[in-house]
């Protein structure tokens, strides 16, 4: 392991306490809602705020007592914080200069990094004349120029518009893969998290609530926050083999599970009927429409009942079924798309 940290930061009305391990070359993404403590964790790793307790070990060396300027850590800040009075080249050369290299050496290194980022022709440009994507690459080059063992990125894509974001995201993924130290990235955007992370750590209220590979977390969320992020209906109930009982309803699922268990299914696995459907499909109940909203090219219907669920239907179905709030409706969920796993 390259990074092994226990980060505890206590403030009035806030407490952050999380364990974090990151392997060599691994990208770990801290995902969580605003105010969860992700950025605080990052700042603690960088040495910008002190730990209340805990430790930070990087390549076997304890660094939690070192000041920020002596930690082998590179940081890409949210909105980058490129020095406005320095050219792109001097921004990147800043770190090597501080490490005691000569001006010529530092600039040579900076030029090489900018070159690698495809920014050779922008080296003499001041930050305010750079586009968002260019600025982000300069910020990354600046952080990498100090040859850090730990790279920290705080919402690296948040400052970009939706269009450039797509492009920059995959490019950033490539560059992070090329970096051989440990990387910790903070985001509140699930898509960024999924694309950029080797491993996701979900943080809520200052604590880790779920941890694992992005695909695993997308399939099996363990909190409402994660379920909402990945667009799943999630309930907690009691499993007894092939069924999970939630709020008096028995859900049939793909997996067998016993004891406390989660049930998760996507909104598109939910079907709505005006009258009780024929036959006896499993996972069927009656509810009342709570709200209807447009969601991309389909309609999301929120149905209240023994358990509140979201269902995705086509606009045509809305007209046909007369899905207006307050109407009673029958709900069924496909067992084949329902996953159950231990809580």
């Amino acid at each position: 392991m390259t990074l092994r940290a226990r980060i505890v930061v206590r403030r009035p009305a806030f407490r952050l306490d999380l364990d974090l391990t990151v392997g060599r070359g691994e990208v770990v993404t801290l995902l969580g809602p605003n105010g969860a403590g992700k950025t605080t964790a990052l700042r603690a790793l960088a040495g910008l705020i002190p730990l209340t307790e805990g430790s930070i070990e990087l390549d076997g060396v304890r660094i939690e007592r070192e000041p920020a300027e002596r930690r082998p850590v590179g940081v890409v800040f949210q909105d980058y914080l490129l020095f406005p009075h320095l050219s792109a080249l001097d921004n990147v050369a800043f770190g090597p200069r501080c490490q005691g290299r000569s001006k010529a050496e530092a600039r040579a290194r900076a030029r090489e990094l900018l070159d690698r980022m495809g920014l050779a022709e922008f080296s003499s440009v001041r930050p305010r004349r750079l586009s968002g994507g260019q600025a982000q690459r300069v910020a990354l080059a600046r952080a990498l120029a100090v040859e850090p063992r730990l790279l920290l990125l705080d919402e690296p894509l948040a400052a970009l518009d939706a269009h450039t974001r797509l492009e920059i995201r995959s490019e950033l993924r490539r560059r992070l893969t090329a970096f051989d130290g440990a990387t910790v990235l903070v985001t509140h955007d699930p898509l960024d998290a999924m694309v950029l992370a080797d491993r996701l750590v979900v943080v809520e209220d200052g604590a880790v609530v779920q941890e694992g590979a992005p695909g695993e977390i997308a399939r099996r969320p363990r909190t409402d926050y994660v379920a909402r992020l990945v667009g799943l209906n999630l309930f907690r109930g009691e499993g007894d083999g092939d069924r999970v009982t939630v709020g008096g309803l028995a859900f049939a699922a793909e997996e067998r599970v016993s004891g406390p268990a989660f049930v998760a299914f996507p909104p598109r696995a939910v079907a709505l009927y005006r009258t009780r459907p024929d036959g006896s499909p499993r996972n069927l109940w009656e509810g009342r429409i709570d709200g209807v909203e447009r969601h991309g090219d389909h309609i999301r219907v929120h149905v209240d009942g023994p358990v509140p669920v979201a269902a995705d239907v086509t606009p045509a179905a809305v007209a046909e079924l007369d899905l207006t709030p307050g109407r009673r409706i029958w709900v069924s969920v496909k067992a084949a798309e329902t996953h159950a796993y231990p809580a």
Partner: protein
Amino acid sequence: MAFLVLPLAGLLIRAPWSTLPQRLAEPQVIEALRLSLVTASVATVVCLVLGVPLAWLLARTDFPGRRLLRALVTVPLVLPPVVGGVALLLVFGRRGLVGQWLESAFGFSLPFTTAGVVVAEAFVAMPFLVIAVEGALRAADPRYEEAAATLGASRFTVFRRVTLPLVAPGVLAGAVLCWARALGEFGATITFAGNFPGRTQTMPLAVYLALETEPEAAIVLSLVLLAVSVVILAGLRDRWVGAAA
């Protein structure tokens, strides 16, 4: 606006234009003007050296007594300059707390010297610089300093290479205010440094004494001081604007 301009217009209207050239050529006038410009500039440098770190302390650090220190910084603004001059005498005078020691150790005494003029001007002008720079520091985003720290910059490097350039406009504004205040300084200077032509008689002192006997000469001297300072300030301004573009 009229409030600012009318007194100036009064000076211009009453100026004895016909005798102006010969009055300007008087060696005493040239001497006082030269002394004023030199002392105000040196005082500004002194204020920069002492004031910028002080402003940084006030804006960026937290220590017991910081509020008190900030209040103290403004004391020279509130104090009648004459009293400021007396206060300086009590400290740096021949029998003052520090002055006594200076005199016995080095045989050096500040009052009635050109260095004394600089001290008096710096004392009175310092708050203008400190307040301007502190304001600029507070307005500057401290996250840039954090970014610099993560890049391995020591506190001093951060200050020199990031903080100072970021607040440069504020520092310049403060220096200009400081210089202008030092140039017009009268009360503390005459009290602490006395009045002797060529050594401690700056323009404002010359103006005041001229006023006793020859009000017209006083007007001429005031206009000279005014014209020179306006020309210098305008010149500097053009230069900064040129450098920034």
